[in-house]
């Protein structure tokens, strides 16, 4: 299917993820069936072969992310999608992709947990796992979405950020957003910004896959293109060879963090609404942001000074945006389908300058506008 102009479709979040991935140039998908993310795999199993791309169902989620990383090193834009238990299994190779600086996209459609939990029920309990799930100190980029259109846009952005910063990017969705259908305008291909992977400008003998560069992101040559080099999950030097030397390890570690931290302005996105005079700021993300927006409108209709800060990037955490909101806010309300993961981050940034109140559910049911309104009234 070739879509030339913007099209209006009534589409599902998962479908938008798949279409966004195709628009971003996805050519390799490896995954393992798991509710509620399976639709993404099913759609891509049909879409990818049509463009000569590869779809493969692996033996488990560990192998899925491994195959994705292998394909990415060999030059293809690659992704996988999973949910709760599968996300846990992917943590091992997620760390590999961070350390070896291999671009890839991992979609996690959150479901209720821990463990098998309730496979069809929504949750937002993986916020901290997305941040810290793989062992060792490391930076990570995590995006989220609360509309079907955002599922499309954020998938494209996940690929672009992952290629620009040579990092895995996690798109953290929830069951509601992934399964709901809504009227969605899909932009025309020429209106979609797609970043192709920067290629080395030097001949193979001068190429160092992990060298310091001005932008902190050395280009990644593809396997099989004449640049023979080494990739390892061990601490490595600029050539990629294992090293035990502190004077090689420390600069690499610093660069790994710096390439994300110095670029938060590009990576971190939020949407503010009615924040100018907001005494209460609701901080929300994913499908919960939709309930929050409705609650905000209803509260405004009653004359209450309530604003909404919707997070589109979860990690790096939007510190500056929260910081800015403290200028007017006496109170932050954080509704989320967990026991308070983003709330902890808001508390960290607010440092006691305003009240931070959570509205939490973790029983597999969504947070309603009424619950948020009640919390607004109660405090």
């Amino acid at each position, binding site marked *: 299917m070739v879509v030339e102009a913007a099209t209006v479709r009534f589409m599902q979040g998962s479908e938008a993820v798949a279409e966004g991935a195709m628009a971003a140039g996805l050519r390799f998908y490896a995954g393992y069936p798991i509710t509620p993310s399976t639709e993404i795999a099913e759609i891509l199993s049909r879409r990818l072969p049509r463009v000569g791309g590869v779809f493969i169902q692996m033996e488990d989620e560990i*192998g*899925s992310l*491994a195959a994705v990383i292998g394909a990415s090193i*060999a*030059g293809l834009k690659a992704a996988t999608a999973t949910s709760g238990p599968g996300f846990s299994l992917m943590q091992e190779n997620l760390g590999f992709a961070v350390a070896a600086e291999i671009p890839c996209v991992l979609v996690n459609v959150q479901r209720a947990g821990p463990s098998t939990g309730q496979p069809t029920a929504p949750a937002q309990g993986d916020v901290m796992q997305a941040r810290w799930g793989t062992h060792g100190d490391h930076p990570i980029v995590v995006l989220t979405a609360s509309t079907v259109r955002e599922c499309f846009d954020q998938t494209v952005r996940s690929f672009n950020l992952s290629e620009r910063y040579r990092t895995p990017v996690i798109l953290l969705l929830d069951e509601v957003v992934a399964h709901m259908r809504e009227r969605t305008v899909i932009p025309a291909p020429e209106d979609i910004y797609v970043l192709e992977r920067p290629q080395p400008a030097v001949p193979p003998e001068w190429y160092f896959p992990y060298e310091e560069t001005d932008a902190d992101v050395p280009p990644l040559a593809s396997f099989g293109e004449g640049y023979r080099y080494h990739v390892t999950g061990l601490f490595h030097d600029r050539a990629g*060879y294992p090293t035990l030397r502190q004077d090689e390890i420390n600069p690499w570690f610093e660069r790994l963090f710096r390439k994300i931290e110095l670029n938060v302005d590009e990576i971190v996105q939020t949407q503010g609404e009615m924040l100018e005079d907001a005494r209460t700021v609701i901080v929300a993300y994913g499908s919960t942001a939709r309930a929050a927006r409705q609650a905000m409108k209803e509260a405004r209709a009653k004359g209450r000074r309530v604003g909404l800060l919707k997070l589109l990037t979860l990690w790096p955490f939007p510190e500056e945006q929260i910081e800015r909101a403290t200028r007017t806010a006496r109170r932050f309300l954080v509704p989320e389908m967990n026991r308070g993961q983003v709330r902890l981050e808001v508390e960290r940034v607010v440092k006691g300058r305003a009240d931070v109140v959570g509205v939490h559910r973790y029983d597999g049911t969504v947070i309603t506008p009424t619950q948020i309104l009640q919390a607004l009234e109660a405090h």
Partner: protein
Amino acid sequence: MTMQTLPPIHEYLRSHKKFPHVWCAGCGAGNVLGSIIRAVGHLGLDRDEVAMVSGIGCSGRMPVYADFNTLHTTHGRALAFATGIKLAKPNMQVLVVMGDGDALAIGGNHFIHAARRNVDLTAIVVNNGIYGLTGGQVSPTTPMGAYATTATYGQIERPFDIAKIADAAGASFVARGTVYHILELEKLIEQAIVKRGFSVVEVISQCHTAYGRLNMMPTAVEMLKWQRDNTISVAAVAAGKSAEGKITRGVLVDRELPEFTDVYFNQVVARAQELTGRAER
């Protein structure tokens, strides 16, 4: 071939960069690397077209010394990473080096599924019957009764037969060699590389440091002699010699089966594009 004056072992090794290596003197891993390099050299493969992938363990350190596209992955996952590379670049020769614990314990699932899927990968399993890098714990191929740091009273579990598993799981080609029979090993690896489909070469190797010293073979020489005395070639068996109590060496399975990338690109992609042409145009 750019450096005609040097023997292949130098052309295919990162000889100026990465030596001396990390293995103990007497370890079989270096011999296996030598065999792989000579096999690749004999086949005249272009270094740019070869990827060498490994997992974790002593064998995992092998790729860093080889001047190919080299990838040292996580424990047990080498075949899954290699599957991604092969599907992304079907023209590359992808060699996967694993240890016995790597391939058959933590990576056992990937191993059987790679064989079932029959992706054109060459899997070389360096089987020393022990976890060497971590100091000598039992592996899934440690013989019953053998001692290890986690089997102080002797191993009570039965060992895997790697070749049999590869056969049962559907590999196109299965062979077994030893480090002692090094020239034979080179030829087996060469055949495995040439074979289209999932090929497995089990190499019986020695770890005198972690295994031999606990099992009355404290030097590499004794362990190599054990390989000499306890194995027999399939040719000798075919000629009528008894294989009683011995491990067979040589090509054990060699069969024609549909290979994954061939089927995927020639059939799946073609069918999808044909159907798309009909349905959406």
